[in-house]
């Protein structure tokens, strides 16, 4: 439950930074004099923080442009099977080492007898060229994008769910829960992310996790999720420690609410804007970490492709055909950039201290 502002006692003139009764969600440029909305019986239409954030986001054209770009990348990657079956006519893992392809009216080897794969044809087959196994790089690029986005999304869900849970339990209960969860988060936090990810990825790629095989995409998603849980859990814990001392939480206790209900119905809603800001940030981090791990061979396992594996595979040809690495690299950069810009937009929109003039 978000604390409601006190009702205004009468006509006054307010100056920015002194809105009556605490947080109203309306932010006024410092120094600006505005009419008291409660004066002379004039009550502005009620506006919630989410609606206000949406309004702010709608005015952030840069964030909107990058949101469109991100959605476009997602849609293109989701259409990978269609591209593979109807245009390229080859699956992402199908080897075609001794095949040929038409380039400028001439049939050439997909992979030459001394092992050099064909470069970009910019045609329906091998648009971005082939890898050493004669696989269509354009097809693998799209499938690799699906893999990267999927792992990023699953990892983000893991981070949000378990990070929030850990922060809530640790911050609200304190005591034993805090004694257990806080050091655990500190321990994970203290490891360099990539090194911890590589260590876990290498170990789990061999043995898997229980019934999940080592080459499952679930493995890197879980690893990334676990590694980043403290990055959300710790700030959530800090915020919960603050919120649990607030009057509205005391009031809820007085009314006889149990700790779980207080956490879910009183504290969690107050964390929603914080969590919302973390979602794009964690998604971007997760996609990047997946790329690092796959690049180092500890993420997505062969023959599956991700942008990280494609960059790594392309390095062998960096001097002769740099596009093999540059194109998946560019896709990765565009995706992460778009998520970050959208994320910044969301943060600005949700930030009650943002310096944005709002007309009511």
């Amino acid at each position: 439950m978000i604390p409601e502002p006190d009702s205004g006692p009468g006509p006054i003139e307010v100056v920015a930074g002194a809105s009556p009764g605490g947080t109203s969600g309306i932010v006024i440029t410092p120094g600006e004099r505005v009419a008291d909305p409660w004066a002379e019986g004039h009550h502005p239409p009620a506006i919630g923080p989410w609606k206000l954030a949406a309004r702010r986001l709608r005015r952030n054209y840069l964030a909107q442009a990058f949101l469109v770009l991100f959605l476009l990348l997602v849609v293109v990657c989701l259409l990978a099977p269609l591209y593979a079956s109807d245009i390229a006519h080859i699956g992402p893992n199908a080897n075609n080492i001794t095949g040929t392809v038409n380039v400028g009216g001439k049939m050439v080897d997909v992979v030459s007898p001394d092992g050099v794969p064909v470069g970009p044809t910019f045609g329906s087959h091998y648009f971005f060229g082939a890898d050493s196994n004669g696989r269509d790089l354009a097809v693998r690029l799209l499938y690799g994008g699906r893999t990267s986005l999927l792992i990023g999304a699953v990892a983000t869900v893991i981070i949000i769910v378990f990070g929030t849970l850990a922060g809530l339990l640790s911050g609200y209960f304190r005591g034993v829960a805090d004694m257990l969860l806080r050091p655990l988060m500190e321990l994970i936090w203290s490891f360099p992310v990539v090194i911890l990810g590589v260590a876990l990825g290498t170990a789990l790629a061999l043995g898997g996790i229980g019934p999940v095989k080592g080459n499952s995409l679930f493995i890197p998603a879980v690893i990334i999720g676990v590694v980043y849980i403290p990055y959300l859990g710790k700030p959530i814990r800090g915020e919960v420690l603050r919120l649990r001392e607030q009057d509205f939480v005391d009031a809820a206790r007085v009314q006889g609410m149990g700790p779980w209900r207080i956490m879910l119905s009183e504290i969690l809603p107050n964390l929603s804007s914080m969590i919302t800001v973390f979602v794009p940030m964690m998604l971007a981090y997760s996609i990047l970490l997946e790329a690092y791990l796959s690049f180092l061979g500890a993420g997505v396992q062969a023959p599956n492709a991700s942008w990280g594996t494609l960059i790594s595979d392309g390095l062998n040809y960096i001097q002769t055909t740099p596009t093999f690495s540059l194109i998946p690299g560019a896709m990765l950069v565009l995706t992460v950039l778009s998520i970050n810009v959208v994320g910044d937009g969301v943060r600005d929109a949700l930030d009650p201290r943002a310096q944005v003039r709002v007309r009511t």
Partner: protein
Amino acid sequence: MKRLIMPLAVTGAVVVALGACSSSSSSSSGSSPASTGAASGGTITIAAGTAPLSADQGLDFTTQGQELYSVINTPLLTFKRGVQGVAGTQIVPALAQSLPTMSNGGKTYTFTLRPNLHYSDGTAIKASDVTYALERDIKIPWQAASFVSAYVAGGTAYADGKATTISGITTNDATGTITVNLVAPFAPIVDIFALPGTAPVPPNTPMKNLAGTGTIGDGPYKWGAITAGQSYTLVKNSKFDVPGLPRGHADTIVYKVNSNVLADAEQVLNNQADVFDPGDTLPASVLPQVKAQATGRYQAIPTNSTFYFWFGLTQKPFNNLNARQAVIAALDDRALSRLDSGFLSEDCHLIPPGIDGHSSPSSCPYHDPNGAPNMTVAKQLMQKSGMIGQPVTVYGEDRAPRRQYLDYFTSVLNSLGFKATEKVINSGVYFTTIGAPSLKPQVGWGDWVQDFPNPWDFMQLFAGNAGSSLNYGYVNDAHYNSTLNTLYQSDPKTVANQWSALDQYAVTNAYYAAYGHEEFPKFYSDKLNFNAGVLSVEYQTDMTSLELK
């Protein structure tokens, strides 16, 4: 990584056999690179993709290790130096005054040490040091320890801790005589005494793996600074003086390890390193550049090696003959050659062309290795096998082009209807992983580079000896085993046809899907005298032949 790790560790089973034996070494023609004799001294850097498992020849039996130990640890015999190609497989005396005398129906070999031999620290070499080195090999253990423990009398008892010494070896330090008694005639024993792992070590050498320091050696070079896994420095041994063996030209040789083989190749191309380690594959992406810019310092040299996939015969689906045959019929050896930058000559047989008993690729039963795969036959065999839909885990290494072989092979299995997934293992532990008795893998990749020029060296890979760490598929065929045990007693030249028939028998029974024999790249910097350098089929780069211009 292309490093052909060849942990020979044959295992086991003591072979009972009869008959005379003789040296298996073959002498054949080869070029003798010419040293200008002008340049001595200086430092030469070898850019290698993989490190040896250890600097201790008493543990390691990888090709990387052999390359290094061949100039650090000189055994009783050695393979002929200074000649390139198969001529380098001829066995000549090293610490021994001459080739051993054979007696007792091929069961006893007698060596005599040359006088006044010294280790690099000045200690005199004694005949009993050979016994100590072999005992150390068994205790550490050397990856090829079973060569000694299984065939030398008393070797098994020593390995099992039932004896304090190897009773089959007797020595006389005063006369320098070393007598080796075998449990049965075993022709390759002469080759084994030419392996650096059997070289003597001082008796105060610890009975443990000296991975970071190596042992005190007796070769033309001795160990300098070692950073295990990263760099190995060899410096000239001024005390080396064995008649007939080269002393080397460079003062210092640095064996620098960088798993990025492309970077290694570029360093040599740009004269930042001097030798591209021949055990690595020159990446296809840099090959055109090498051929164009490095004419006169690059050459592909045929070696005795075989690349293959093995099948796990004790479990589904490859306990089924039709399933195995289907896979072989569907394999495109030309594709695998392209993955190896074109360095493979396609063939379905295990015994390579440079070894007695090699069969022509034209006799391959399921498809022409130089032609397209026979998918029609493959799919019929799959239907017949009833193994469609069976899950398969395919094992392979993580380094190029081996991971690419794995990707290709997995895609072939999936095209036949198996549900194949890959298990990529780090190159450094691949063979020990798949050879672990607890694993029993279904199918995977393997390679073999000759240890010595004898078909037995290749065919023993599929010997059904209990506990073999090389027979990854657990092939155990009574006819195969008994034929192998009979043939190794004879000079391979005299029974070449029978070796060939055994290879053909195994191919027909689809015990392995061999797909080619590799050429190794001899690729030097501009600073080296290319014509003087030797790429030995035994030791890869013969470091004693390297000289600066």
